[in-house]
């Protein structure tokens, strides 16, 4: 029997590719503000946004030769921190097809990979859906 998805108030479908603009920064700031107001949030990462939660990214970015001792957290570490801080209010899903299509097959354990054919179930489990960025 298939496990049902946890209900959330808002589903954010994040399609914007990282590194190209500030979509990810804006999205995570929005997620945090929603969580701070008690809103339950789920995120569905699609397209290149699926690359953000790869375990291969580690805790930190590669070292900065100009500031050798500064630690720069990876996107995976940032998202893992947010998920750990809000276990009953924040959920992160990834599109399995997009992820496999980009060779990203090893994600944070907290991230649930889902086939695109099940996307409607995620939409149904949320009060509202907001799509951010383009694929």
């Amino acid at each position, binding site marked *: 029997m298939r496990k049902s998805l946890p209900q959330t108030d808002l589903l954010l479908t994040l399609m914007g590719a*990282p*590194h*190209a*603009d*500030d979509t*990810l*920064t804006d999205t*995570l*700031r929005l997620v*945090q503000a929603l969580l701070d107001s008690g809103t339950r949030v789920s995120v569905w990462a699609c397209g290149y946004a699926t690359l*953000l939660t790869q375990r291969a990214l580690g805790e930190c*970015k*590669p070292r*900065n030769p*100009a*500031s050798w001792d*500064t*630690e*720069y*957290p990876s*996107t995976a570490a*940032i998202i893992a*921190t*947010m*998920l*750990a*801080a*809000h276990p009953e209010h924040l959920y992160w899903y990834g599109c399995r097809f997009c992820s496999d299509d980009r060779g990203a097959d090893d994600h944070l354990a907290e991230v649930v990979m889902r086939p695109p054919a099940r996307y409607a179930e995620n939409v149904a489990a949320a009060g509202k859906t907001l799509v951010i960025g383009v694929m």
Partner: protein
Amino acid sequence: MLAIVEQAYRGALEKQFFDCFCLAAELHRQLGGLDMLLRGAAATYAVPAPEPVSLILGGRELATFSVPRTNLGTLLDAGAGVFVEREGLAEHGLTDVEPIDGITVVEGQELARRWPDYRTVCFL
């Protein structure tokens, strides 16, 4: 070489230090000199502004974002040339704002006429 930067604010969380200025500094070091032209939204980098505020995400403070104006200063200190298009400043209401010391304001076509003087012209 001439490096043109016209897209601004790309990947604050993803890039942090590893942005177009980091690449420009390395190109300047390796290839014997670099001029940077700021145009479009990137023209806003040429005027003073407060440093980015830190973010609190999941209870963790993040304060390791790219600081474009500091990075421009590093480029200038290394001997790179930095120019900004007057049109870019005007588009963002910055006509009357003095650019950061060392940055030269140029007209839209001014650098384009000098392209033949450069071995390489590219966008960063």
